[in-house]
């Protein structure tokens, strides 16, 4: 009996060992096969940032700031993203939402660069400054902004030697106009029941 039980214990141990080896191999393979490149949290943060690449946060682009945030930097350094981005980041990172840090600029409506084309001397300085290649032109040729690609980052304004670049707010047209939510006065300011209102009028 004793021998038998010892044998069964050995068999059990062997079986466990074999299982451990098999699963170890599977895990090892999986960790190689499904390896995650880079830090996924950085990418998640980067997805929330507005990608204007304006550098107002003090980093040379949004990705470096995302890396900064992942390393514990404050989340309120992004003026183009504004409060919405801060809230989204706070949500993602489980932090307290905070107010935008004024040091890095204030939240502005979305802007787009506009080159006054007859004043452009074709120096290509703005082209070199544009982080998203949204300015088209060549040396001694007039430049123009690809409005759809412009992030409104402001970086092209400074290098222009003839000051012919303006940042203009994106105009509201019938194409981008938005329905407003029913105004809050309708909702909270006038919490009357209809008969009260009628009573008032009469």
């Amino acid at each position, binding site marked *: 009996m004793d021998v038998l039980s010892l044998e069964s214990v050995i068999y059990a141990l062997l079986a466990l060992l074999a299982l451990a080896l098999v699963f170890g191999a599977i895990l090892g393979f999986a960790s190689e096969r499904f390896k995650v490149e880079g830090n996924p949290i950085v990418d998640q943060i*980067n997805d929330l*940032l*507005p*990608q*204007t*690449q304006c550098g107002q946060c003090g980093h040379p*682009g*949004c*990705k470096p700031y995302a890396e900064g945030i992942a390393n514990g930097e404050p989340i309120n350094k992004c003026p183009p993203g504004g409060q919405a981005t801060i809230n989204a980041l706070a949500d993602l990172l489980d932090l307290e939402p905070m107010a935008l840090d004024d040091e890095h600029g204030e939240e502005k409506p979305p802007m787009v660069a506009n080159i006054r084309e007859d004043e452009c001397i074709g120096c290509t300085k703005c082209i070199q400054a544009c*982080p*998203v*290649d*949204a300015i088209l032109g060549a040396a001694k040729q007039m430049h123009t902004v690809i409005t*759809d*690609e412009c*992030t409104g980052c402001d970086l092209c304004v400074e290098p222009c030697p003839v000051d012919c670049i303006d940042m203009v707010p994106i105009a*509201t*047209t*019938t*194409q*981008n*106009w*938005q*329905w*407003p*939510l*029913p105004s809050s006065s*309708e*909702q909270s300011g*006038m*919490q*009357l*029941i*209809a008969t009260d*209102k009628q009573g008032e009028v009469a």
Partner: protein
Amino acid sequence: MSAIPLRTIHDFPGGVHPQENKEQSTRTPIAIPPLPARLVLPLNQHSGAPAQPVVSAGEHVLKGQLLAKATGFVSAPVHAPTSGTISSLEMHPVPHWSGLEESCLILLPDGKDEWCSLSPIEDYRTAEREELVERIHDAGIVGLGGAGFPAAVKMSSRKASKIHTLVVNGAECEPYITADDMLMRERAAQLVSGIEILQHMLAPEQVLIGIEDNKPEAIATMEKACAGKAGIEVCTVPTKYPSGDAQRLIWLLTGKEVPNDSRSVDIGILCYNVGTIVAVHDAIVHGKPLISRITTLTGSALSRPGNVEALIGTPAEHLLVFAGIDNDTFHTLIQGGPMMGHTLDTTAVPVIKTSNCFIAGTAQEFPAAPPAQACIRCGLCADACPIELLPQQLHWYAKSQNHDQLQHHNLFDCIECGACAYVCPSAIPLVQYYRAAKDEIRTHKARTEKSERSRVRFEQRQARLEAAAAEKEARRKANAEKARKLKEAKAAAATAPEKSEAKAEAEADPIQAAIQRAKAKKAARAAGTDSPAKPAKPARPQLSPKQKELKIQLSMAKAQLKKSERALPQMEEGSPEANKLKDDIALVQKQLEQLQTEFDAASSAPAEAPAATEKPVKAKKPALSDDEKKRKIELAMKKAALKKAERALAVAEEAGSDQVDTLRQARDEKRQALADAENTGVQA
């Protein structure tokens, strides 16, 4: 009165029965209002990209002439509704919810109403499908029911799919609107002709004309017009709002539901409004573009409500005056019906292709909405919703801007029919919440897409800059490597100078060779001017190249002299520059004389010397042939090699190296080579 419906009508869930108010505008036939003083033609009267003007201000245009061409796949052109002059392209209020202005062409009619030449298709039955589609597109036909989706795009967007059913939408479920009703009553023949054109083009198995049972006259007329036509069936549907929605009507007539995120063409069904089909008939049979439409003018503030065939671009105020507007009681102007339409801030807005109705209401007719109250979760909205959504849930989520939950609850399937708001006992403006939430989500999506694109562009730019920097670095490294090798080689040459090596070196690097040549020249010049003893050193045959060298020096000095002399008269007499120049000239002249004497002294070949002395400059010039140049370069190279060898020898001698003998030998070899080369040069 009519035949028993052959078709089972599949009732859709929900729906409401608002007061119809249709009888006011059906008492009189379709009228044609007088020409207005100006027509306002927005460039964007359809869904999709705005049209692009092809006429300029001041241009005279004829009725039906193209004014603005379509831009892109989903777009439609705009045509002149009458003849006249284009006065300007300006921002003008348009019938849009926002009340914003859009760019519009302003046409001042000349009153002649003169058509441009039309090219109708004689027999559409023999025409290619593509040609007909193109005609419909070029005629600027868009869905006249309200959405304004370009009709040609709809029929050609899914080429592969087979259309088995054509649904003709004559349901017209919105209260007040009777434009389609009157059109079917008065233009049944054109409508049937249009249907036949579409039958020819799309070859559907069946054509179902859906008409609500509150339009008995239209049903009777259509049944009469369709009698004996194969495959066309007039179907009466019960009056229930919103049966006129294309997808509700498809459900009613076929029992099929268009899946989420796809269009009716995807399930083989195409749906056109009756007005659109009449426009197709006009475009194919008469060649006329879409320049007018039937519009209902109604509302209690009008004394003569009715339907008019209004030119596109006619200002609403013109039509309202035609319909007898009472400005004292007039309170609200609504475009579209009271359920899905919207109020307009101004009566200056024009009729556009999608304007099916203008309601001029009085204050009693359209009182201000009562204040919204809290949702009591009564569930009436859910019962009324024809799409079976959960309106109150959507309302909560829209209020809290919970976009994920809104999409989860299929907000984008909402057709904004307003049935939920109509039944809401708390008078919550539900549809406005949904519209706001939809716009918010769309904007958010667009922003995310743009930021994604910006990210990609930024990364690509970074990669490009890095690649450029890396390339530069690599080039710099390669150059450094080359310089290092050269240095090594030089060092090697210094210790063991070999002709071949020096030559290879010179060949390997043209710049280096050029520098060497320049150095050789300089050295030669120095030898010529500074050390008169040196020319004596070389062996006899080397004297003639020496002569040549001197000759070059001579001619160069002469050229300089000439230049200076030429410059002199231009200078102001007595100025410091002129004096300096004079001094220079004197110096050069002196040098020239010295060179001349040296040259004479050095010359031992009498045959060559006289020519050189007499006219050195002229003698120099013909010597500048390519062959000569090449030889000169070779000579210079050899001289340089010799110099190097001599230098190396000197170094070696100084150091007392044991290589002195080999170096000396190398020098002699080089000297010999140089002499040979010079000889051949002289002979040549």
